[in-house]
């Protein structure tokens, strides 16, 4: 008489994803990379304090400075970079830390694993980003002639724009991360060559970049200058949200599809 090994039932998608999320967040958030990224994201707060102590001669109000920082520093440059650092390493980090071995030998589906990992990514980057944006706003706007209340609605919209930017780029770079062995260089090229230049080309070229839609969400952004002023294209808020959301969801779906079919050889 042979005893049959008990077959463990696969956990449903969401409970499985939740379990993965709680394990992954411990791997992602309290670590050196997050600390350095936080320091980078906190730079505008320090800059804001300096601007308040040594006001520049430029005729910009505190709220206008905040607009410049959110539009140019956060949405255009830093958040895509943060998404690249965290999003592209979503699965490779799990491989390196051996947590993927742990997940794959447990009764959870690959869909749950990916969703849990992506959820942990989103919570991590939002935990690092949102306080920095809020503090930048407070430092630059409190005590100015406009007062802290001016642009409060814009602040909330900006936080939404930052979250959507992180979601979309995160989905895209997660796709890059599961597709390529070394996604960092192609990711950087994409950010600084494609997104950096094509978004300011004349004609319909900006339609094929993510940054053109992301920057359109910052409605109090500063005016562009030089060629960017002539060629920059901006889209309606509804259109931007739809495109960014669609790109994020499609990228995630593709990433999940690839992750579900890919074989991972875990070296000892």
């Amino acid at each position, binding site marked *: 008489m042979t005893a049959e090994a008990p077959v463990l039932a696969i956990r449903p998608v969401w409970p499985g994803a939740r379990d993965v999320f709680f394990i992954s*967040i*411990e791997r*992602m*958030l*309290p670590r050196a990379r997050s600390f350095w990224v936080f320091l980078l994201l906190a730079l505008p707060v320090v800059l804001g304090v300096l601007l308040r102590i040594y006001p520049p*001669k430029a*005729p910009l*109000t505190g*709220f206008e400075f905040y607009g410049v920082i959110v539009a140019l520093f956060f949405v255009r440059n830093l958040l895509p970079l943060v998404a690249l650092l965290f999003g592209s390493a979503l699965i490779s980090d799990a491989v390196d830390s051996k947590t993927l071995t742990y997940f794959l030998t447990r009764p959870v589906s690959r869909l749950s694993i990916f969703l849990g990992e992506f959820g942990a990514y989103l*919570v991590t980057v*939002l*935990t*690092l980003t*949102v*306080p920095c944006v*809020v*503090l930048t*706003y*407070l430092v630059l*706007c*409190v005590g*100015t*002639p*406009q*007062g*802290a*209340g*001016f*642009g*409060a609605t814009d*602040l*909330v919209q900006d*936080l939404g724009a930052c979250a959507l930017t992180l979601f979309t780029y995160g989905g895209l770079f997660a796709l890059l991360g599961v597709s390529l062995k070394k996604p960092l260089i192609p990711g950087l090229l994409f950010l600084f060559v494609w997104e950096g230049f094509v978004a300011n080309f004349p004609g319909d070229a900006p339609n094929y970049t993510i940054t053109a839609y992301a920057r*359109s969400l910052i*409605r109090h952004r500063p*005016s*562009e*200058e030089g060629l960017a*002023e*002539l060629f*920059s294209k*901006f*889209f*309606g808020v509804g259109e931007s949200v739809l495109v960014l959301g669609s790109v994020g969801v499609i990228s995630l779906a593709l990433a999940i599809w690839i992750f579900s079919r890919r074989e991972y050889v875990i070296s000892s």
Partner: protein
Amino acid sequence: MNRSRRLIATAAAISVLGVGLAFSSRLTGTARAAVGPIPPEALALPADSSVVMGFDVRALTSSQFYARFGQEGEPGRVEALAEIERKTGLNPERDIDTVVVAIRANATAAKAVAGNQRSENALVFVTGRFDAARLESSIPASGKATKERRDGVTIYREASGKSNGTVALLDAGILIAGDATSVDTFLTNRQTGRGIRDSKELVALLERVEPGSTFWAVGGPSVLSRMTSEIGGPAANLPAVKQVVAYGHLDPEVGMTATAEAADAKSATKIADVLRGFSAMLSLQAGQKAELAQIADSISVATEDDKVHVKATITHDLIDSLKKSATSSHNRARKAIEEAEVH
């Protein structure tokens, strides 16, 4: 509680407190009573105003700009303030804090336009420190006026029959002036609690004015479409503008931000193109006047759907340079005329 949960809780607490502080300042500050730059006492201005504009006289007269350019014959001289001083004895630098002007362009006014008559029902709202005795002595001197006292308000009505101008002194700090109908509307609104808040569109426009602006103006379609047609020339061919919000400051440089909303994105692009063309024309004339190139550089135009954003910043030195350039041109022209007369 593990480390990551502590970090998430801290970040959430900072964010919620920060956003809460931003909104609480909005609710507990003057914004609760006032609408945008309109002081609470001026909320009785008519809700059907097509254009509302104002300037912070105290900020103007205490500015570096005014100190440098506010004297007789200087570009910063505001003739309206000088006129107020002549007619009422009020010294704007000393007595006036803010001025808000509401212009109504109703159906009756539109008919008057056809007859080339002055049609706007402008109502001027002034806050400051007013000496009733001095006002009384000055108003009749500038024309015959009757005085009446109603519900604690002193009303002076023009009695010569040439116009129906009326000035009402609400208290020692608020004065309104305009035609009799507009002033009466204001006083009625003040008692019934009606006024500018009744117009959601106007409130929305006013709330877009940046607080702390030295001067500002918002306008709806009825007056703006007339303005472009009355100006004539290339402006008459511009697409209709639905609404405009403009505001600016004087120090440390003169800065102005305006957002115009056109009927659609195509019209907005057309308006932006005209403005950029104007800027390019200024650049082309840089050979004759270098300052024009600097002005052209200081103007930036951007479009966003059906909106056109225009921003201009002109330094005090540039204004000074333009003034000197204009004075020397004027002197050269006068010298040439004098020489021609001699010969």
